[in-house]
């Protein structure tokens, strides 16, 4: 698969490293060049330095031919704009978005082709599942 990842913080760099290791073609877009240092040494994809909220930067990352775009910056508002750009401007077939504030989840409810991953909800869900499973014993 050809995957474009927006944001190379702890989340983006971990995803990029693992996905490229398992054989996917990966492009990472990040505005702060220092963040690329978080990528593992064996990362074999491309790095693009720039603001992903600019159409030209997304084009540089060949987003129009991406099978999947993962939007993983640490800012919910930027993630919303960039995921809509990927969907509307570049017709990307599948978009995954990281969500910081769970209150934002509902913004994507009616948005087709976009899947949300709300880190706090996932964490809480995991913990609760574990507690409840153990409670049954």
């Amino acid at each position, binding site marked *: 698969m050809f995957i474009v990842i927006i944001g190379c913080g702890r989340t983006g760099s971990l995803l990029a490293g693992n996905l490229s290791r398992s054989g996917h073609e990966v492009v990472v877009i990040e505005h702060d060049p220092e963040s690329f240092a978080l990528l593992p040494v064996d990362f074999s994809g491309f790095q693009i330095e720039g603001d992903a909220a*600019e159409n030209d930067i997304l084009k540089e990352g060949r987003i129009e031919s991406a099978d999947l775009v993962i939007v993983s910056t640490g800012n*919910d508002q930027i993630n919303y704009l960039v995921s809509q750009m990927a969907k509307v401007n570049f017709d990307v077939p599948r978009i995954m978005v990281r969500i910081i504030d769970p*209150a934002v989840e*509902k*913004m994507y409810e009616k948005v087709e082709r976009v899947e949300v991953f709300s880190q706090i909800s996932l964490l809480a869900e995991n913990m609760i599942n574990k507690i409840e499973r153990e409670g049954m014993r």
Partner: protein
Amino acid sequence: MDIILVGGGKLIYHLAKKLISKGHFLTIINKDRKLAEDLAREINATVVLGDATNKTVLEDAGAYKADNLVSLTQKDHNNLFICKMAMEYFGVERTTALVNNPENEELFNTLGITGIFNITDLISSIIEQSVSADDVSNLTMIEEGKLSIFQVEVSPNSEAVGKEIKDIDLPMTIVLGGIIRNGEITIPRGGSQIKSGDKIVIISLPEEQAEAIKVFGGEE
């Protein structure tokens, strides 16, 4: 109308005063404490101190009963997010956003933002015109710049001099609204003759403006 204004720096102060004088009820959201305090003191509006991208802040500002939300921050991602949040979470019907990056205008439109101020394009088109032609003055823009009304002085070497309006080759979308000659205004008819030095008030689409200026201004 119940209107919520977000952000805006100095612009918001004057905008708020105008809207209040027209009888609207305003709530202003600003995250700068100093600015929020100044606004609360000087303007007859409810001022909420906080970040409008936060659902609770919008709720505090009474978003559920607002008729219109206007987001004027310097960041397009915040303007889009705040408008969409108002629409999706509180059912606000009309939202207006400032667009700082002209490329976002179409996207915002597609996403259902009802009013869009493409500030960069508006300002640059006005500056461009005042730089390129001294004898053109912009009178006003209608519907956020979709229609412009402006005035051109007829140059002696214009192809229109001496001709009647019906004989001048003009695009159909350009309408002549008035001829000012020696301080007298006449409403143009097909048979009105154009003279050098006339000032013509023109109503046109912004993209046709250059064509009209070429015909009457007599320049390439």
